Every structure is written in C-alpha cells, then in structure tokens.
C-alpha cells in the first residue's frame, strides 16, 4: 500500500461516492437486483450524453427502472412500509401476481412510476429521481403521490416538504421530475457504513448503491431483497428510513 493509500485510511470516510466509481457501483447494483428481485424488471444503464465521443472515456450515465405500477394496497400494508408493485407487461393475465413476465397492469387503478438513479457531482452521492403518471400518461400531482407513499414517508413529507421531496428538472432529460433531496445522504450513509469502510475494500464501493438503495428505496416503498446486502450490512440493517431521516 503506498503512502497515498495509507493517508486515505487515516481520514475518516465522509459518506460520499466518487464520480468515477458510480458506474461500477451501478452495475453491481443492477446485477444483484436482477439476481434477487425477480418480481421486478431490471435496472437499465443509460449512457449520457448520447452524442458520440472519444469512446475510451468513461461514459456518464444513470440507472432507470421504468413503468412499474403501484397496485392500491390496503392501509395496513402501507403502514408496514411495504407496497405492492407490479411491472407493466402486455401478456395475458396471471394467477401469480408477482411474476412480471405474465402480468397485466389493471388500467383503472394503477399509478405508473419511473425511477432514475442519477449521480450528483455537487453532493457526490446518488440521487433518486422519480415521476408518476396515470395509465393515460397524465402526470400525478404530488398530493396523489403522497397518498401512494408508505406511511412513515408521508409523515416526513408533511413535516419538511421543501427539504425532502422536491421538484426539479431532470439533469439530462429537460423535464420536471421529483427527487429525494440529497443533502443528508452523506451523513446517513456514514452512519450506515463507516464500520465497514477501508480504502482497500473494493467491495465496499461496489456495494455503495445497494446500501444506499436499501434506505432510499424504503422511502418510496421499494424494498430490496435482503440477499442483496452482505453479511455486515444485514447486521446494520436494523435502521429504518425514518430513524435515519430524523
């Protein structure tokens, strides 16, 4: 280990993810998602900008998970933080509701969601962007989205509306999207992971997005399979999103 590495170990980790590690962390996340979250379609990598350039340069991009439908669940389920999601498909009706290959979204009662994970160079953390629309393509107002969120998120939203979910232009797509504001991310990622951090732990960087999503996903009701986390993280995973956000 050279001197630089030795210095890095002395400095406590600040909870951020370096820009050049984002695509690696993203591919680990999407691979694990594919392996363990069968009921969902995979996350896709979207390179940006789209114009052709020096191909050797590491391409910027973001992850997308689009057109997942939120099925109206009863209040009790929502209070336990779990929502029922189904993926859009145009094949026949299924008996198994969580097999995404054979499910049709009930058109009259489904809210469609698109999720993007975009890196913020200012905050040096990933940010979750999302938007929601009815089956006819009309966007959902925030008041309707709030109704869709798991119980504890809605409370947080009411308390600090401006600093929690905000509406901003998507960094690449020139359209208004909603996002979970990133200014606290670094702090709670530090809480979550600093025990497992060492600069020589490459696995740590790869796991960053998985760990991050284990918290952020809960806010929007997307629970990841615990199998995606490694053993240390499972131990730490007693925290819920509301504990972290408070």
């Amino acid at each position: 280990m050279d001197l630089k590495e030795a210095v890095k170990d002395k400095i406590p980790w600040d909870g951020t993810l370096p820009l050049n590690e984002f695509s690696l962390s993203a591919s680990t996340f999407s691979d694990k998602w594919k392996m363990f979250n069968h009921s969902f379609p995979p996350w896709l990598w979207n390179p940006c900008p789209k114009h052709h350039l020096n191909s050797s340069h590491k391409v910027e991009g973001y992850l997308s998970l689009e057109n997942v439908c939120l099925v109206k669940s009863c209040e009790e389920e929502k209070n336990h933080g779990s929502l029922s999601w189904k993926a859009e498909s145009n094949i026949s009706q299924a008996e198994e509701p969580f097999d995404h290959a054979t499910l049709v979204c009930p058109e009259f009662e489904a809210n469609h969601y698109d999720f993007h994970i975009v890196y913020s160079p200012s905050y040096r953390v990933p940010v979750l962007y999302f938007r929601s629309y009815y089956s006819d393509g009309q966007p959902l107002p925030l008041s309707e989205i709030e109704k869709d969120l798991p119980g504890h998120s809605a409370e947080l939203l009411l308390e600090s509306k401006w600093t929690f979910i905000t509406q901003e232009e998507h960094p690449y797509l020139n359209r208004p999207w909603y996002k979970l504001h990133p200014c606290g991310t670094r702090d709670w990622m530090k809480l979550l992971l600093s025990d497992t951090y060492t600069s020589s732990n490459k696995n740590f960087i790869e796991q960053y997005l998985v760990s991050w999503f284990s918290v952020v996903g809960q806010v929007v009701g997307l629970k990841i399979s615990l199998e995606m986390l490694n053993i240390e993280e499972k131990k730490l995973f007693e925290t819920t999103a509301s504990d972290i956000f408070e």
Partner: protein
Amino acid sequence: MSEAQKYVWKGAIPLQIHLHESEVTTLPPPPPALVLAPRIGYLPLLISLLKPHFSATLPPGVDTIWFEYKGLHLKWYIPTGVLFDLLCMEPERPWNLTVHFRGYPSNLLLPCEGEDSVKWSFINSLKEAAYVITGNCKNIMNMSQTDQVDLWGSVLNGNLESYSRVSSKLKLETFEDEYTENVDSASTKSQQSTGDAEAVGQVKTSRIPVRLYLWAVNEDFDDFEDAPVIDNWDKVSYINRPVEIHKEDGKYFSLNDAVKRLLPEYFPESSFGNEGDASINQSAGEEGENSCDPESSSHTVEIAEIKCVRIQGIEPSLEVPFSWVVNNLMNPEYFLHMCVCLKVSEANALQ
C-alpha cells in the same frame, strides 16, 4: 466589492415583451412592454411590471406567467443574463420575448408560483453552492430570518452593498484574492496547520460551483448571426459540475484550464490529475490495432475547439486566471454560469 462586481450587478438586458396573440382580447392589441431586466435576476420577477401593462387585455382566468423566445420556452430558474448569453449569441437589442399568462407548459417546465418559487430556487442553489464549497449547508440553514430576508431583498433590488454585507457572513469565499492559493475546506485546513498533510504530500482540493451551458456545433461559422439556432433545450448540455482545483495547479490556473477540466469527454488530456481516469484518449490507437481490415486503416478522431466562452455578457480572454473570473463574475447564489460554444469536428488520424 470590485469594479467588475459593480458592473455585473448593474448589468441589465433591454427586453421588448410581446403578449402572445392567443391572449390578446382587445383591439388594437397592446403595445409590447419595454423593460430593463437585471442580468442577475429572473424573468418571473418581472410580473409586477408586466401584469399592469397587459391586464386590460387578458382573458378572464388565473395568471401563470411564462416566457418564450422564438418558440422556445424559457427556463425561469436560469438567471436572465444567462438566458440572453446562451440563446442570443448575436445580441439582439432589445431582446424580443413573448409572454404568456395562460397555458403553462407544465409537462416541460417546472411550476412557478410567483416570487416564492423563484426565491426557493435561489436558496436551493445557494445551499448547493455552499455544499460544494464547504462540504455542508449549515451556514445557509443557520441564517437568521433577518439575514435571509435581507439577502433575497438585495438580489430583488439589485443592491450590491446590502448583498455584500449579508453574504460575507456566510463565509463562502472560494479564492482568497486574485492570485493566491486556494481556500481549502475546513477539514484539510486543520491538517495543514499540524503539518501532517505536507508530510505525506496529500493533494488538497477546492471545489468551485459552476453551471456550464454547453452548445456543440459541427459546422464552422464566422459570425454568430450564421450560427445554428438553439430551438430546443436538448441542443444544450447542462453541466452542473464543480471545478476541482488541485494544489499543483498553481496560481495561474486559467479560465481555459477550468473549461477543459469540466469537459473531460472533449478534452481528455486535461483530465490528468483528476480523480480516476488517467487513461487518455487511447481509443484511436486501440481501434487501429484491432481492425485488421485494410479498408478501415484510417480512423477518425474527434477534435473539440472552444469557440466561445461567454460569462455575464462578456467573453473574457481564456488566459485570465480562473480565480479572478469566479470572484468577479459569479452570480449572487455563488454559482459561476458559463455559456460555452464548442466546435466539434472529425479528422482523419494518420496511423
């Protein structure tokens, strides 16, 4: 307060604002409104001047103001001066805009509910800038109510003196003065004083908040009159990325250096020293090796050339120290907004 800052704060764009014909209900139609819009201000704030001017002719209903230029809706959270520098590269004086009070394009444009929305957007950007410079938003979150009101008021009224008074409390200086070393973030500062950092040769970085509006063209042109028009926001790349300053950059890190550092995909040599990617543009060589086909023995390389960098309506020499540019030309929310036109061409590389 430097002379340059005074000029920036006094800078204004003469606008000739026409009400969209679909909203004109009287004959003759109202004349356009002539308004001097502050460069560092935002278009929706002009409603106090425009509403009285057009109210007699507007159809009944709720007013939500939005603007367009030659069919392109204008993003209201971008400072007026930046919109002008970007969309009107060949300056039009006065700048002819169309105003709407109805039919807000909410699928395209973030909602704007008056001054509060603009103020919120401004504070949010200020928080982001503070985060970039110091690593946290505390000094903004901890602002007293009076200071917040004074700060926003000074921007609304274009009062640089009042602004300087409040903003100096925020301690967001990025460069100490024009040609000295950079102000480090709090954590590295303490290490510097104990001498530990020097002993192990740690690289110190500063981060400068920048918003770069990039417009790449393939054809060459002599005058901006002949330049291809920006008729769609997809033609502009919005790059919201801080400039990372390294210790070894020295005192004369220029505007040219900063722009190239922000665009590693166009200027790969400049990325040496940045975190990570030291592999420079090897693609040409690698592709050449892999393709054994004699037909494809020549391959193309892309060359980018900075055609224009426009900041606060001026095109500074690219050799000006970046520290001067930041200190004197940044906007009140501590972001430096740069409009950059890049000419990208393909050239056949020789083996």
